[in-house]
């Protein structure tokens, strides 16, 4: 099914209209994060050296591994869509569970990365961060807020994915009715898309 961001609804095609709603939601989400990217740009401009030094404290390897994990998750999510269209329930379940595993791995990696920052006292409100100065406060504030907001999206996707997996297992979703799986897939891919934009801001620049 081809999703469109166009809002020209067609009542004779309820499935199309539903997915246009998902398109609008994705549009709003992207604009929300675009605002944060702009905010990051402005604060970076005002604190170039502090942002450069603070970014150097983050592990590129950790960010890179998380990027590979989330891309693998999107691939397995796409595979589940292919499998359900072919009417292969077990393969669909396998790929959905693999996607959940990938999501879990991302969350575990995020936990250890955050824990590393917190152990060094580099978290919003900490004395260590205040001592380092305004630029570091802004960098780590944005880092925790944006990666946290992304994590919330991933957790919502994770919960929705569990719901979809049970629906597939109970034969409520199948070859002739898979719109919910498609919509969940779009949301999951949105989390990937957002991460691909967040990753360079904090790890590569």
């Amino acid at each position, binding site marked *: *099914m*081809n*999703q*469109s*961001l*166009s*809002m020209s609804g067609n009542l004779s095609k309820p499935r199309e209209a539903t997915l246009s709603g998902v*398109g*609008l939601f*994705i*549009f709003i989400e*992207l*604009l929300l994060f*675009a605002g944060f*990217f*702009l905010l*990051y*740009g*402005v604060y*970076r*401009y005002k604190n*170039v050296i502090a942002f450069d030094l603070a970014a150097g404290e983050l592990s*590129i390897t950790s960010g*890179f591994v998380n*990027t*590979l994990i989330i*891309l*693998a998750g*999107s*691939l397995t*999510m*796409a*595979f589940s*869509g*292919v499998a359900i*269209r072919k009417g292969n329930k077990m393969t669909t379940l396998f790929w959905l569970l693999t996607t959940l595993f990938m999501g879990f791995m991302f969350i575990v990696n995020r936990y250890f990365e955050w824990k590393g920052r917190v152990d060094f006292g580099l978290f919003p409100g900490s004395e260590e961060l205040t001592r380092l100065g305004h630029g570091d406060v802004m960098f780590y504030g944005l880092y925790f807020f944006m990666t946290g907001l992304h994590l919330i999206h991933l957790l919502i996707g994770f919960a929705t994915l569990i719901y979809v997996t049970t629906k597939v297992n109970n034969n409520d979703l199948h070859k002739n009715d898979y719109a919910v799986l*498609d919509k969940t*897939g*779009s949301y999951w*891919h*949105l989390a*990937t*898309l957002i991460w*691909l*934009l967040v*990753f*360079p801001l904090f*790890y*590569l*620049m």
Partner: protein
Amino acid sequence: MDKQATVSAKTYIWVALLLVALTIISTILSSLNLGYLNDLMAVGVAVLSALIVLSKFMNIKLNGGYARLLFAGVMAMALLIFFVAFVG
């Protein structure tokens, strides 16, 4: 027509490999000292990767009014970020 049904698993693998390659390129480029080009290329590759996810994985057409607005908005934001942060 159900267009997404025609997308094969093989196509998705190639798309994922392309995204991994872009991530590797972006990471390698960030280790080189290219001045302001480092940031420009990091953002450029990220936007390209995001557009690939949008069009291939999410199968969202970039020909609707909202999509054009979004594309223009993201481009304007990217330009604004670049000029405010690195040129101004």
